[in-house]
């Protein structure tokens, strides 16, 4: 069974005011098939963890490790991480002008599997996944994220999750900005991906509402760059009722 393991991770970013420590010793272990929710107030380092796992150059790892079945992820380039089975559904997916969704998906699939997918079954699979996410066919002829609404961008992320079949996926605030219908559609997509591939999920969210549709096995509360509390799904319910206030008594919110 695959394991994604984060150990004593310290991460900083460069800001105009100098180097800023964001993660201050994070430990997490996610086994294949498990769903872990990471919750926390703004500025607690949730997104930093997501981008550090994916290898965004903005984030500097000061110490610690991220391993995937024992292999050091931090030594891998961004694309090597994806090929090793990691996936990040982004909070703000960027526009790529002139690159059509269909071409992009096929290029990504080819890069991940090392060979171009057979055309007919691939197109069938893409169309099926798009239909399930209530995306119109014309979507695949549009340029990646160009002119997409917020909801379309998130669906496009989950479309990739379903088609690229990673072993572990980090969903960075996939629920933010979605109305309840879109939230359901997107959550169904995530659940389908999990049922068909048994991937492990790291679900980063500020709110508890997505956890009504995607049931976490574990909940971790992030405060000031550390895991402040861990528990089962009942912890999410408690946060729903109490908010983050009790974690913030002696820390400053950024």
């Amino acid at each position, binding site marked *: 069974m695959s394991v994604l393991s984060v150990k004593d991770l310290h991460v900083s970013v460069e800001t105009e005011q100098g180097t800023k420590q964001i993660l201050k010793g994070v430990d997490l272990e996610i086994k294949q098939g498990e769903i872990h929710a990471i919750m926390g107030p703004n500025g607690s380092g949730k997104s930093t963890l997501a981008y550090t796992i*994916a*290898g*965004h*150059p903005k984030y500097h790892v000061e110490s610690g490790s991220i391993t995937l079945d024992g292999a050091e992820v931090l030594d891998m*380039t*961004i*694309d090597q*991480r*994806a*090929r090793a089975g990691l*996936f*990040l559904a*982004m909070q703000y*997916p*960027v*526009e*790529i*002008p*002139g*690159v059509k969704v269909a071409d*992009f998906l096929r*290029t*990504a699939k080819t*890069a*991940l599997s090392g060979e171009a997918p057979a055309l007919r079954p691939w197109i069938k699979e893409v169309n099926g996944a798009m239909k399930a996410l209530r995306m119109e066919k014309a979507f695949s002829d549009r*340029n990646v994220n160009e002119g997409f609404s917020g909801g379309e961008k998130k669906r496009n992320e989950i479309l*990739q999750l379903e088609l*690229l079949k990673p072993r572990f996926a980090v969903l960075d605030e996939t629920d933010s900005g979605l109305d309840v219908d879109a939230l359901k559609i997107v959550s169904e997509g995530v659940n389908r991906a999990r049922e068909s591939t048994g991937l492990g999920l790291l679900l980063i969210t500020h709110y508890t509402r997505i956890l009504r549709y995607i049931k976490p096995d574990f909940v971790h509360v992030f405060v000031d760059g550390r895991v402040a509390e861990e528990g089962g799904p009942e912890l999410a319910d408690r946060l729903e009722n109490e908010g983050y206030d009790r974690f913030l008594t002696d820390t400053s919110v950024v």
Partner: protein
Amino acid sequence: MTLVTPEQHGLKAHSDGGWDADDKGFVPVQTRSARPKSFEHADFAPVNGLEADWKLTPVKLIKPLLDDVLDGTPYAIETDAPENVTVEWVARDDARVASAGEPEDRASANAWTNFDKALAITVTGEEHATVRISRSDMGASARAAHTVITARPHSNSTVLIESSGSALLSENVEIVVEDGATLNVVSVQDWADDAIHLASHFVQVGRDATLKHTLVSLGGKVVRVNPSVHLSGEGADGELYGLYFADEGQHLEQRVYLHHQAAQTRGRVNYKGALQGAGARTVWVGDVLIGSGGSGTDSYEQNRNLVLTEGTRADSIPNLEIETGDIQGAGHASATGRFDDEQLFYLQARGISEAEARRLVVIGFLAEIVQKVGDEQLEARLHTAIESELEGTNS
């Protein structure tokens, strides 16, 4: 430290203004349409490289084209003129010559003074026709050329001119789109590394006529192509596109002038360029003039440059001049930027290698213009050419 009392502004003449010149009557050109014009080389003063029109051009490299007598004899072309299209060499006094414009600079006037015969391409049919002209053997000695493209009323055609090989060429291209005609002109400059090419395109678009004009500059040491497009008939429509890719040591320049002369005209200008390698240099100037007769004008121009490496320079200068208040819309935009790291990150996070991600981003950026070319064969060739530019195998 000494304190300097600033002088009263305007007390002394500006170094570039000439307002205080000895000849007090001196007034700089006030509007784009008022620039001096002449068919005679001798009417233009020698170029010193400080003139507004030349200061961004490597004048030293183009001296022979500015000053020397040029060889104006016909050169070899390859063409496959279909029905309803004639391609022929005609004398200077042919009625089609001088029907679209008059030189506005010394290199253009030199070409006009020296050309011997003009290459005339004339389209008559209402059924769409495509004519391809390729010239690959212009020679390395200083040469003048003249081309006249005439789209007769209600004709519909695509004219593709592709240039390759070595050249030291100054030329004028006249394009007349007569009433109700539709013309798509694509000029591809994919010269050899040592080529030097200066060109002026003079375009008149008649009543209810439609012009699409695309410049693609990929190869050559110095390539400067200046299209001046006059939407001279009511309801004329002009779309001007450009794509350029400058790499190490290349200078690619385009000075676009779009003149909304008649009422109810529509104009779109969109030029996109990429720069890669030390000394890669591009210049884009976009002058749009909405004349006093241009009521109901709808106009937009933009230039975008993508800088791929250090050591490049892109100039982008949009100008918009409006002489009537009664217009539908007019706007301009210009942006020059580096690779968007977030775009690369996004693609790489999906398993795509950095090299492939860069390739996708650049090709995507330029694809918008390639898609306008309107000829599948040429579009495919341009995609291949851009790919080899990226790999550095084409210069």
